[in-house]
């Protein structure tokens, strides 16, 4: 427990005491996707404000958008967005009482992760290929 921790609420066991399995990885990645999307949404709002200021403001960030770092950022953002959407849809299935069996939950965790990476890779490839 962290030094100075004075929260008296009951805590769930630390992840180091769990045996790793795909559904656990899926849960951690879902939370990671939330944090990435939070930062990305703030960045989108800042960029919208820059675009509203005019062409000159766009030129200032243009180099970053069309750089390899920009393409990587688009890949991470699109992967997080697609994974978050797919994981949320799976949560709706779970709410309906379907897909709870450990084998199914683990298999779907892998499928969703692979799907998100494939979709993000294809989107990034198409985007970078379209640059002038």
């Amino acid at each position, binding site marked *: 427990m*962290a030094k*100075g*921790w*004075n*929260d008296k609420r009951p805590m769930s066991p630390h992840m180091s005491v769990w045996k790793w399995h795909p559904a656990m990885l899926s849960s951690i990645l879902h*939370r990671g996707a*939330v*944090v990435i*999307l*939070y930062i990305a*949404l*703030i960045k*989108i*709002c*800042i960029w*919208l*404000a820059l*675009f*509203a200021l005019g*062409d000159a403001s*766009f*030129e200032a960030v*243009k180099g970053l*958008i069309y750089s390899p770092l920009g393409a990587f950022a*688009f890949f991470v953002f*699109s992967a997080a*967005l*697609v994974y*978050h*959407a*797919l994981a*949320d*849809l799976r*949560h*709706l299935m779970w*709410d309906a009482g379907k897909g709870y069996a450990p084998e199914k939950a683990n298999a779907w965790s892998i499928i969703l992760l692979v799907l998100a990476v494939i979709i993000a890779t294809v*989107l990034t490839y*198409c*985007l970078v290929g*379209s*640059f002038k």
Partner: protein
Amino acid sequence: MSTVKSSAGHKATHHFKTHKRTSLILALLTPFFLCGLMQAIKGEYKGFIDWITSPLGAVVLLAFITIGLYQSRHSMSEVIMDYASSEASLKFFLKLNTFACFVFWLVGVVAIIKIWLGA
């Protein structure tokens, strides 16, 4: 038998239902948003302006940042509740989270309206 309404329970149910509804809307918006964003990036500055000033683009973008930031606030609140080490830091970060989401939402919406009006 009379029923007793629990404020905490009521809030948690509302939080759960809202989260589910916004999740579904965000999942439906995702393909529209990504397609629009990719088209906009291809067209450089003019592409972004065309996207934001088109009716579909503006509605998708407004809905995406509104629902996205609303849901992000909810999700980040859960993260803060899990990791805040004290009552004081919990309250501080929850308020900061709400404030940041509202401010950036306002910045985004005002920017979209300005681009729309200036087009």
